[in-house]
């Protein structure tokens, strides 16, 4: 193409033949790229825009749930008098709606204890989701510990890890009292110092530098 253009130019403008040849060949005076290149790049850019117009919405559609936070959900699990300080009571409530029993989860609830350095008059709801890989832990009354059946994770009365593979204490649920009923709310995780942080998935460390290596997800609720 470039050569043809030169020939045509040369034939038509014979007197100006001695004018400096375009260098590199095929470039006309004042042009920085050949016309073919302009059209090639232009066509590819248009194709890219058209492709992006299809692909980006589709990808966004698939990844949107990462950025979506559902409605905060509170559920009453029993009157205040049901719960005591020195042991847990097992309650089952719905964490995810619309999938029947699969959306239910188990929590162990007790009154907060000043002996353990907790604020008086509140309620503690410990999730039964093991902080190792998410198996359901069980509160063993005789030992006063939470024990995971899958890989032998053990947690103390407060839910702090005391043995096995888990990487952090058990998650907790926000609690409040409404009309004399204890209500459980969104899940949150705690650090080894029992400081609340946004909910993490099992297997993810919390606190310190881990807050950056396992960043909080936009789909979770802020901690209390």
């Amino acid at each position, binding site marked *: 193409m470039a050569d043809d253009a030169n020939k045509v130019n040369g034939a038509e403008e014979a007197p100006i033949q001695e004018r400096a040849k375009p260098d590199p060949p095929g470039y006309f005076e004042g042009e920085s790229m050949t016309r073919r290149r302009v059209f090639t790049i232009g066509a590819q850019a248009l194709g890219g825009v058209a492709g992006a117009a299809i692909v980006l919405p589709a990808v966004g559609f*698939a990844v949107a*749930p990462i950025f979506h936070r559902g409605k905060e959900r509170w559920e009453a699990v029993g009157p205040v008098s049901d719960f005591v300080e020195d042991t847990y009571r097992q309650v089952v409530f719905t964490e*995810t709606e*619309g999938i029947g029993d699969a959306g239910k989860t188990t929590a162990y609830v007790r009154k907060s204890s000043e002996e353990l350095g907790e604020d008086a008059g509140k309620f503690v709801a410990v999730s039964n989701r093991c902080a190792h890989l998410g198996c359901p832990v069980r509160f063993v009354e005789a030992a006063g510990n939470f024990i995971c059946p899958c890989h032998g994770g053990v947690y103390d009365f407060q839910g702090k890890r005391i043995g096995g593979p888990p990487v952090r204490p058990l998650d907790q649920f926000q609690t409040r009292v409404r009309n004399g009923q204890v209500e459980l709310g969104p899940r949150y995780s705690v650090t080894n110092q029992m400081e609340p942080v946004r909910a*993490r*998935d099992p297997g*993810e460390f919390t606190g310190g530098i881990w807050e950056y290596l396992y*960043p909080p997800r936009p789909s979770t609720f802020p901690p209390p």
Partner: protein
Amino acid sequence: MPKIPVPKIPDAVVPPPLRKPAKPGAGGTPKGQAPEGLKTSPPERQSHGDKLLDRGKEAPIDALAWVDQRLAASGFLTGMLYRKVPKGTNWFYTLGSATLFAFIVQAVTGVFLAMYYTPSATQAYHSIAHINNDVPLGQLVHGMHKWGSSVMVILIFLHMGRTFFFGAYKYPRELNWVIGVVLLILTMTMAFTGYLLPFDQRSFWASIVGININGTGPVVGPYLSDFLRAGPELGATTLSRFYAIHMLLVPGAIIALIGAHMYLVVKLGTTAPPWVKTERPKGAMPTAELEAGANGKGRVNGNRVNGAPVSGEGNGASA
């Protein structure tokens, strides 16, 4: 090993030489084969019925030739099906085909399972129970799909082991090894996403553990598990998401990559087992130089080329 007599292949099946040009006007026969009638004198006069019978006999061939004339597939198929394989090729070389067969079984049974399955959190379990208990042969088809998935994973690893221990991943077949690894990952994705679909206790908890293992990856892990679950908790959308990945996204990728995998196998040929030595004629150059010469750009720095000779006799490698 005692030599087993090889049965004679019937003449009709043996393809003609590859580059023999077709005779003009010989359209009704396979490429390169002139009909007998053209070589000899015209046949005796036949009755009308005989002619019809002959035409009828040739009709399937004519139809095939009509397609082949437009598709030009016979040359490709002949080259692929009758390609040379190296000396020493043995039963271990069938593991790849076995894996492909396992995949086909999965694809076929999966299509039929999809006719009865409902990817909904509240109905999935009951639809599987319906398949197992009520649908004729449902338990068999479901069982083939369920156990076939394990068979496929096992076969992949055996195939991979064969490739590794025979050195068949070396130049020029590295890309095929990489494609194979991607296929392995995709198969694992299939196994993982398929496990949730019955939506019983076992599959539910197994998926939770699997997703949480994904979540332990630093920085991207939490987002990856959110992506898999379609939210912070395993829910109704998780099931339909896994279903879509299991029967639309990954199978397409697997089929495409199997095509690329097999194209490279046919193009590059298979390797000889490592215990088969390259045969060298008397007074010929040392192996390395021989290969360098045959290959144009072979490696001459080593005295030996380990394992898989690139251009050994009859392995069909194209330099």
